[in-house]
């Protein structure tokens, strides 16, 4: 086996450092909630619908509470209180608070315990809904053949959910294991989740609950038609991280792009907001048995992949630490990394192999997610296809778990039907023709690959020590990841962060945290 030397004591130290980094943040998380978390809770309790302009009721509800300075008790407390006050249903209660125009009094009212009790049946129903969806997904999946690793993951991104469904089915038909519907360009910055089926989006299609259903239905159909399971994934990311996690959980999605820091770095979303949101989203994901994919690959689209390879590894330790604290098992942690070294650099393939193998060994139980070359892609589609083939070869050689297939049209457009077909064909070829290459080779002791693996781990360790010293807040403020600097109170969505009241109520979180 083509293993690289990994100093396990260094790995342990990295984990310990990352753990302390996450613990520091966890103390903050445990004292805060956000509009996103509370909207998620409302949705879980069954609050649905939108006003004629399309503003969802969960938003109206939570915004109203926040405007009244009443969100710190948690939307659950308000809903519980309304039920105790005679509301006929959670939905009615939500509508009354949102649109009723009555004053919202936080003084008085029931205790958290009373409100919790009032909600008890609803709470159980909410959790049951997640559990049922999970059981359904697992049962359906068990009836179908599932792909061999590396799982072949492709994206569709037509902007129109009905076209997406056609393309998703075609993808499974020609060999895909996982389909991701890429999200419309600016959705991560929307502080609400659009309603219903959507047919207009740039660079992708909106993530909505109805769109999730449409794709799941198509995926179910094609799984049945081909006898092979087509997994579905989307983005639990941006300002609605937690809401989308919940929608995915109940709509039987298999995976989610979900990262503790991506929104901060790449969407300039406030870090306090993101940390709190990611925690709740991951609590849901953990319960739903969904696999997350983290976004460290993105670092290498802005930073140099040779110089900054260690930042990927350091960040993976941090994402892992956060994920553990949110109750995820290693088998649910699809840590992300990528093949983004300048292809014209001599021996770049060896450096890619070193990194891929290092990540594989350090995160040996994790379904790691391996991303294709994008940054150095050009519009020369023939060459681009070869570049992807080398990526596929590295993937099979180092036994990656989930492989997002590169597209030869990467530098031109989101993939066409034909592009995806050819990409799948090529991956099938490379995975087959070099199936056991990784098992057949050993790296030369002290050679390029071994030296590179050692160096990356050492630098990651060094960086983690520094991050631990200054804390993640300052580390991000000084550009530790992706060469991007973000201030603690800067960025979008900070206004949606609320300190929890001493009597803050969130019965769902309590259950999700049970055994913590």
């Amino acid at each position: 086996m083509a293993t690289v030397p990994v100093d396990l004591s260094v790995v342990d130290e990295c984990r310990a450092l990352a753990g302390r980094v996450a613990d520091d943040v966890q103390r903050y998380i445990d004292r805060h909630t956000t509009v996103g978390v509370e909207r998620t809770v409302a949705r879980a309790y069954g609050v649905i619908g939108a006003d004629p302009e399309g503003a969802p009721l969960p938003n109206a509800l939570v915004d109203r509470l926040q405007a009244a300075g009443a969100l710190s008790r948690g939307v659950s407390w308000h809903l519980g209180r309304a039920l105790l006050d005679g509301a006929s249903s959670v939905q009615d209660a939500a509508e009354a608070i949102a649109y009723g125009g009555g004053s919202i009094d936080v003084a008085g009212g029931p205790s958290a315990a009373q409100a919790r009790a009032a909600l008890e049946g609803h709470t159980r129903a909410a959790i049951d809904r997640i559990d049922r969806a999970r059981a359904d997904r697992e049962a359906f999946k068990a009836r179908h053949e599932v792909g061999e690793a590396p799982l072949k993951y492709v994206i569709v991104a037509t902007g129109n959910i009905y076209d997406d469904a056609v393309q998703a089915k075609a993808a499974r038909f020609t060999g895909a294991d996982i389909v991701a519907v890429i999200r419309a360009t600016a959705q991560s910055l929307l502080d609400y989740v659009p309603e219903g089926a959507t047919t207009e989006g740039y660079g992708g299609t909106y993530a909505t609950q109805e769109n999730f259903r449409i794709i799941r239905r198509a995926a179910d159909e094609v799984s049945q038609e081909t006898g092979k399971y087509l997994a579905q994934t989307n983005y639990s990311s941006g300002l609605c991280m937690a809401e989308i996690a919940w929608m995915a959980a109940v709509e039987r999605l298999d995976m989610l792009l979900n990262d503790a820091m991506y929104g901060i770095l790449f969407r300039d979303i406030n870090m306090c907001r993101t940390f709190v949101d990611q925690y709740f989203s991951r609590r849901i994901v953990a319960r739903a048995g969904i696999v997350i994919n983290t976004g460290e690959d993105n670092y290498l689209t802005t930073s140099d992949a040779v110089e900054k390879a260690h930042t990927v590894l350091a960040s993976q330790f941090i994402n892992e630490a956060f994920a553990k604290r949110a109750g995820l098992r290693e088998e649910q942690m699809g840590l992300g990394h990528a093949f983004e070294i300048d292809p014209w650099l001599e021996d770049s393939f060896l450096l890619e192999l070193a990194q891929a193998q290092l990540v594989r060994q350090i995160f040996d139980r994790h379904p790691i997610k391996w991303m294709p070359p994008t940054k150095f892609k050009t519009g020369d589609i023939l060459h681009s296809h070869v570049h992807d083939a080398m990526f596929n070869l590295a993937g099979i050689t180092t036994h990656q778990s989930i492989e997002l297939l590169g597209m030869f049209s990467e530098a031109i457009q989101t993939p066409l039907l034909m592009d995806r077909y050819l990409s799948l064909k090529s991956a099938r070829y490379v995975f087959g023709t070099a199936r056991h290459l990784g098992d057949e080779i050993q790296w030369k002791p002290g050679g390029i690959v071994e030296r590179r693996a050692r160096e990356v781990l050492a630098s990651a360790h060094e960086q983690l020590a520094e991050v631990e010293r200054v804390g993640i807040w300052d580390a991000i403020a000084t550009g530790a990841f992706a060469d991007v600097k973000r201030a603690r109170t800067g960025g979008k969505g900070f206004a949606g962060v609320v300190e929890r009241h001493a009597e803050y109520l969130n019965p769902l979180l309590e259950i999700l945290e049970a055994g913590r």
Partner: protein
Amino acid sequence: MATKNVLRAYGDREGDGMVQMSFTLEILPGDRAREAAKRFAEAHGLREPIVSAMEQCSAQHSYFVVYGHSVHSVDLAEIHVEELAAKPLDRDEILALAKQLGRKIVVVGACTGSDAHTVGIDAILNYKGFAGEKGLESYKCFDAHNLGAQVENVELVTRARALGADAILVSQVITQRNCHKENAAALVALLRQEGLRDRFLLLLGGPRIDHQLAVELGFDAGFGTGTKPSAVAGYVVERVLDRAARSA
């Protein structure tokens, strides 16, 4: 499933007409060259062409990749093409059918002219066959003669007469500047001249052959890339029976 009658190219949105082209022009990369490539694509009916690659590929040429929305379509209603391989017979069906004839069917095959590619005709005729199927030699109902490659048309006709062939199978692989068409047409002309055209069932095959083309060249049928021996066997048996019935 129902197929549409008027087809447009499809990228990722119904009706987008998405098409990819690549070509070489004698001009060096630059703004003018990009514009030239765009206009060249537009001349082919591509709307809003995107020149995604423009790279120098000789001292004076550039290579281009272009994507664009094609305005063109094809009307299937206007396409009248026999699907020869639509419902292929299996070995047992072929043998059963051939029994009706009461004798073996003699087939003579060759790769003709200067063409030395035997693999294709071997795939169809020889016992070994192709893609997991055995060739015509393996069928009891055929008496198959494979004359190999670089056989001149005159020799082929002589041998076919001598062997009393029912069918002549010609393979043509090299197509540079249409030499396959010329060579194939010359065989038909020769047969016509000698008044023998109707004596033989005439099959043409090769990677760039299709039924339509073969018929245009005066053959009875054409078989292209990936043809399986059984498709040829089935076709020959059916047509030889047909001829026998008609001449009876």
